[in-house]
């Protein structure tokens, strides 16, 4: 199959931005000689040098703290978390420095923290988490989630050019999936932040989703179509600020909405989306907005357990059928 994998799309975005703007640099663990844990930056240090591809000690706090300082000084750091789980170790400077500098001081902190999130690769409790909701209530941050190769490239380029701090969630389960290979649009492919994407149009039901879960949602929609049920699949893409308009428009059109994501349902970002939908589409809704996420447990290791944990096409299909029957 031709086109780029999701991982290659990320790599291309980084490379193009390094080429485009000398203010852009990469910082993280094992980026240089090793090329990054997933080999995304392989060969980059040879090409761009050690000052644009900075290897650090194992110091997520230090990496993000330094990225904040460099961003204040006008550079555009792109920091890698080897796994997004480790952003827990860099939490404070993100929520207290990066998020608040513009409001309290008028200075933007244009940095990107990116890395692989999510389950599906038997990573176990510390290499498979979806941690977007840590940050959802922190004003000043942007949260971006890319579910396809094209979006990964276009959104990452937009994130790097953004004037505000962006947490950019990639998905290791998608990195090398051959069926997600896509041709990139020609030229400077930038996907603006803050816009959801209707990945599939439909009339009868809406499912709002993001990240890895987009794919089982599409699969479920295909299965329902066989029975004549038409499902609209909205990929949120940016979680903060999120595209209420597209989502609410879809909700008003179909009158029945499911919000599906990979993180546990309780306290997940789906609550925000569901709450807002019913606030803004109450009169249009024929059923409660339903949520489908993982159970409230850490993500387990064994494939059979992980499979039971993650929302898959079968469970999404069942939830949609149930909603349809409401």
């Amino acid at each position, binding site marked *: 199959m031709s086109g780029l994998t999701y991982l290659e799309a990320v790599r291309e975005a980084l490379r193009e931005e390094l080429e485009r703007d000398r203010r852009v640099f990469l910082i993280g*663990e*094992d980026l*240089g*000689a*090793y*090329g990054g*844990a997933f080999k995304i930056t392989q060969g980059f240090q040879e090409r761009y040098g050690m000052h644009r591809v900075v*290897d*650090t*000690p*194992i*110091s*997520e*706090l*230090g990496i993000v703290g330094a990225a904040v300082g460099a961003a204040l000084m006008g550079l555009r750091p792109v920091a890698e978390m080897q796994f997004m*789980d*480790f952003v*827990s*170790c860099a939490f404070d400077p993100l929520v207290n420095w990066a998020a608040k500098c513009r409001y309290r001081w008028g200075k933007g902190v244009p940095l990107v923290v990116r890395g692989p999130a999510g389950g599906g690769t*038997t*990573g*176990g*409790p*510390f*290499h498979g988490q979806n941690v977007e909701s840590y940050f959802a209530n922190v004003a000043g941050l942007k949260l971006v989630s890319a579910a396809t190769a094209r979006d990964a490239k276009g959104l990452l380029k937009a994130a790097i050019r953004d004037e505000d701090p962006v947490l950019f969630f990639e998905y290791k389960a998608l990195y090398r999936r051959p069926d997600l290979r896509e041709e990139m649009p020609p030229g400077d492919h930038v996907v603006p932040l803050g816009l959801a994407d209707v990945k599939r149009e439909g009339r009868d039901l809406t499912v709002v989703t993001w990240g890895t879960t987009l794919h089982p949602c599409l699969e479920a929609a295909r299965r329902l179509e066989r029975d004549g049920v038409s499902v609209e699949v909205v990929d949120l893409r940016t979680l903060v600020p999120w595209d209420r308009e597209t989502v609410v428009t879809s909700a008003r059109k179909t009158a029945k909405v499911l919000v599906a994501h990979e993180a546990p349902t309780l306290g997940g970002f789906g609550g925000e989306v569901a709450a807002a939908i019913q606030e803004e589409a109450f009169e249009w809704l024929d059923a409660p907005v339903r949520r489908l996420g993982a*159970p*409230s*447990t*850490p993500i*387990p*290791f*064994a*494939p*059979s*357990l992980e*499979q*039971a*944990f993650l929302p898959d096409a079968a469970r999404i299909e069942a939830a949609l059928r149930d909603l349809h029957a409401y």
Partner: protein
Amino acid sequence: MTPPPEDRIGLYRFMLITRDVEERLGILAKQGKLKGGLYRCLGQEAIGVGSAYAMGENDVFGPGIRELGAFFVRGYAPRLVIMQYMAKGGGPTAGRETNVHFGELHPDGRGLISPISMLGSMVSVCTGVALAQRYRGLDAVTVAHTGDGAMSTGQFYEGFNLACVQRLPLVVIGSNNGWAYGTPTNRQFRARDLAARAAGYGCPVMQVDGNDVEAVWAATREAREICLRGQGPVFVEALTMRMVGHAAHDDAKYVSREMLEAWRARDPLALQRQRLLDEGVATQADLAAMEDEVQAMVLAEAEAALAAPEPDPATVIGGVYHGEPSPLAVAGYPWTHGEAAPDGWFRQDAATVESRVRAPFDDTGLWNPEVVPYAPVRAAVEDER
């Protein structure tokens, strides 16, 4: 300090088990029978084995990823490790956790802390374990492991600093194996070595040949005694080399052949074997017999692991909060928190413990203008020039 003869052989035997199990795991990985990554301690077996062997029965051990040997010393059957790597339902975490992320804790305070991935955090958690040992009046220490890379983390620093201020019975063993994943130590820290780095904590610091299992044993024993005298914590740097990639997927091309060759000549198993022969502790025949026996044992353990059941998908939930059914509770962990501490749970009265805690602060003067050395200290600057 040299261990008694049977222990010198025992140290070799546990290193052998460790290597054989890892080799077996390597084969199973190639056969696609393992889940997740395989993290080996090839070339570093002496550290996990030597330090665990030196511990008191009631001590607590906090392993890193490369202290597999300690699990065997602490009595775990190889099959448990293999089942864990295979994500078996019968494994020590019923398939919930990866690699060496398991352990045990007993009401009497003994234990082995199940590590998590976040590097450095084991040291701050073990600071709390050591605090609890003193609090409960146990005559025991905690031995926690860190890598050179993990030692760059704030969690290491804050935890170890707290242990130092509190003079807790904590031995931290830092394995300086030259690399953290693909990053060499000179991009991890600027001091000469981990010992120099640790000096700033103001606690006793030792350095030991991490490929010499008897030296690791002796250093851990000495560090342990310093801790029991109330002078802990102690930092022990063990110098060694990671002889394979970070994990099975890493071909470690970034390591030079010369570096590997030089260290290969110092293989910890070969060193100890030769020493046992040279010093007449064991004969060639003794060792050969032991090697056969271990190999057969590990093979049998692997067979048992292979036969074990997969986890039941229904066990994905449960056991997050107290009172929920859990596959782990069923697996027989005895440690629960009753409403009151059982008799004898506190081994010393509160006043004795209190006086131990107070001592380090009572004998340390507060900041005072008399002690200000007004001349700038420039030694380090001169060094640089």
